[in-house]
């Protein structure tokens, strides 16, 4: 399975999805008007990954900003990983936020509250 890489822009995140190591990362900004264009290919990749996943999946989120429609896609991606988690695979989300960025910390708390996979909040 090919890895998925996408360069970031002023409105879209840098995306790295590594099928072999199970390491994945979103960083930068995710504020596109049309999140479907950005995230549908990512969802498709993840659906394929889930069929033959790595032993450990680590999903790193280092976002500066994200909009409401991106948050819905983020949740949908995490839901896919919940399915993996239920089958006994190791899955963890690492949610990074800048020191004193209460809002991004709060967003991490939101996902931790909603999800059944471990969500670790990390200051950087």
């Amino acid at each position: 399975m090919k890895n998925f890489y996408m360069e970031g822009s002023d409105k879209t995140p840098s995306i790295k999805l590594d099928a072999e190591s199970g390491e994945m990362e979103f960083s930068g900004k995710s504020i596109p008007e049309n999140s479907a264009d950005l995230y549908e290919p990512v969802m498709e990749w993840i659906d394929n990954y889930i069929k033959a996943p790595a032993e450990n999946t680590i999903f790193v989120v280092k976002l500066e900003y994200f909009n409401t429609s991106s948050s819905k896609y983020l949740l949908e991606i995490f839901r896919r990983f919940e399915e993996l988690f239920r089958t006994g695979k190791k899955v963890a989300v690492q949610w990074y936020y800048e020191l004193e960025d209460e809002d991004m910390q709060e967003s991490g708390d939101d996902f931790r509250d909603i999800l059944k996979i471990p969500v670790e909040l990390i200051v950087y």
Partner: protein
Amino acid sequence: MLQLNYCSPFFVSEKEKILTKMSFIEEIIGPNQEILLSLAWNRSNFLMSGFTEMELNKRSDKIVFSYMGKPTHEMIDLILEMSETKLRIIESNSTIVKRIVNVLIEILQNIFNHGEDFSVVDHQSFKFFLFKRGDDYFIITENFIKTKEVNNLISKLDGYLSMSDEDITRTYRKTLDNGGFSIKGGAGLGLINIIRKSNGNLEYKFSKVDKENSMFRLGVQIKVE
């Protein structure tokens, strides 16, 4: 303090010119100087009435950025970019800058997704103000919406505004969890987020323009503790 007023029609093609001008100005006066930039056809055309507290006081409030015209995608990007640039110069608290930009993203994208078809309305179809009063920041927007959607929006806004902080967080999480997918955001998640980030310091007003269209005016205060 330097104040610039562009009281002529502003087009997206002028973006480069203005950004160049801004960096030129910053080069001359230094990045820590306060720059007040107002981009509007004519500031006196802004109708600032009907709100209790969230009124622009032209004498004492400091305008960070203002715009009146059609809200194209390019224009919204420019408002976000320039507001953030200005905020980073005048506000040292980066948490506040990020919070304001976050609220701006929600408000502006919400207007674009739910507002009236802007291609058929005139140059005054959208008004935007970001200003500072004391330590606090205020965002005021005006845009058209369909009159038939007004009651639904009022009941949503009033419902969310009557909630405690804990309830609004619970509602946000529940809506995110169950809201499903919608290109337009849907389910009011953007609105809930705006209310949450502003701690409920929000005012709104609807004015009927004609049978089909109404003006929606939104004021949000971001308090700096």
